[in-house]
């Protein structure tokens, strides 16, 4: 390896082109599969499954390393998060008053604290614990990605949490509007409940759509308010990790080390969010940027599937599943009460 012989460089370039072509083909296939499957079975799941299958075939053919050159998982994830900023519009969040912000802050803090505590009781590995807490308390996959960048989590941990998020969102998307209708919740209250509880944005919109236009609007705004906290949580996690968890290995952290470890792509997310909030982007442009984000995340999850190690996944075990489900139940009940107090009572309207 490392030879600079022209034919060797030519071969490397050919492998890189083949890798890029494979990535594009898999991304296109993911897009098609996501379009024809139920809404909550989101594209990250299809992308990871296709990546896993392609990785298995390439491994059997003995060309996995050569064909995997373009699979820059972390770069795609972080680029997707920068693009996600365009979907966080502070002016839209405030269009329902301070209620959305209050609900987001209380819910995210309480659910994160509960999941962190329970994960500690069941002795979960701390990085996995951080990812799960971020995913269940904020907004599922995107928050888990940001947390993974902050605490340097392993790919298997991110794949595990992503699978949990998507599998949990599917029944919730169907059950929550049904419960809301059966109990006669107002569209505002129901929307705030869906947005505060369901972890993936697509499933939030799906649940809201089953309950009408007002519910979709409130659900999307409440979810957006939670998404806005991604940057804050990623920063606090990075700070906690450097100052508490890594002290044993790297010694007392300097400001320089904290800066080095800070997930700087979060700054990109915040900058783009500010640009969206000041109205720099038209609706069509936001739609295009959101589509680019989906493509970036698709490429990333193909890479996650490609590199997935089942032995690592098995090592994670079933305890995280218990923590995630318990935290989801806690989130559901707390969101129900909070959304009633903030959106369900007439004195707030």
């Amino acid at each position, binding site marked *: 390896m490392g030879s600079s012989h022209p034919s060797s460089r030519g071969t490397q370039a050919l492998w890189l082109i083949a890798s890029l072509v494979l990535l594009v083909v898999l991304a296109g296939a993911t897009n098609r599969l996501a379009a024809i499957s139920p809404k909550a079975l989101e594209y990250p799941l299809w992308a990871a499954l296709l990546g896993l299958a392609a990785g298995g075939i390439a491994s059997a053919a003995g060309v996995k390393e050569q064909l995997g050159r373009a699979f820059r998982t972390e*770069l795609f994830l972080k680029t997707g998060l*920068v693009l996600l900023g*365009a979907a966080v519009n502070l002016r839209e969040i405030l269009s329902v008053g301070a209620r959305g912000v209050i609900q987001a802050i209380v819910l995210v803090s309480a659910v994160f604290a509960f999941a962190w505590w329970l994960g500690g009781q069941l002795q979960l590995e701390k990085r996995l614990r951080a990812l799960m807490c971020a995913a269940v308390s904020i907004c599922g996959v995107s928050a888990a990605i940001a947390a993974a960048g902050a605490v340097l989590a392993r790919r298997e941990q991110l794949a595990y949490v992503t699978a949990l998020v998507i599998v949990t969102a599917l029944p919730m998307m169907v059950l929550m509007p049904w419960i809301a209708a059966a109990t006669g919740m107002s569209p505002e209250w129901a929307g705030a409940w869906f947005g505060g509880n369901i972890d993936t944005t697509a499933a939030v919109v799906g649940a809201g759509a089953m309950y009408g236009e007002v519910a979709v609007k409130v659900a999307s705004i409440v979810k957006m308010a939670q998404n806005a906290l991604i940057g804050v949580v990623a920063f606090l996690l990075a700070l906690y990790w450097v100052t508490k968890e890594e002290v044993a290995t790297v010694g007392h952290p300097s400001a320089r080390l904290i800066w080095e470890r800070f997930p700087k*792509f979060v700054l*990109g997310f915040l900058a783009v969010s500010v640009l969206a909030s000041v109205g720099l982007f038209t609706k*069509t442009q936001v739609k295009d940027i959101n589509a680019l984000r989906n493509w970036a995340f698709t490429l990333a999850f193909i890479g996650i599937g490609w590199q997935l190690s089942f032995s690592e996944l098995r090592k994670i075990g079933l305890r995280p599943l218990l923590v995630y489900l318990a935290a989801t139940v806690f989130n559901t009940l707390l969101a129900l009460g909070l959304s009633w107090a903030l959106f369900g009572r007439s004195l707030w309207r």
Partner: protein
Amino acid sequence: MEAHQSPVRKPLVSRLGEDEWAMIVGLLLILLVVLGILGPIPW
């Protein structure tokens, strides 16, 4: 006496980490969308 040699500095491009590249790529894509060069993007 040895001549003073300043440490070899890597070019800026290779000093950039994944986070910085993600920001550059993300912002560049947004710029292309805003300028109307990229889009409509199907999804």
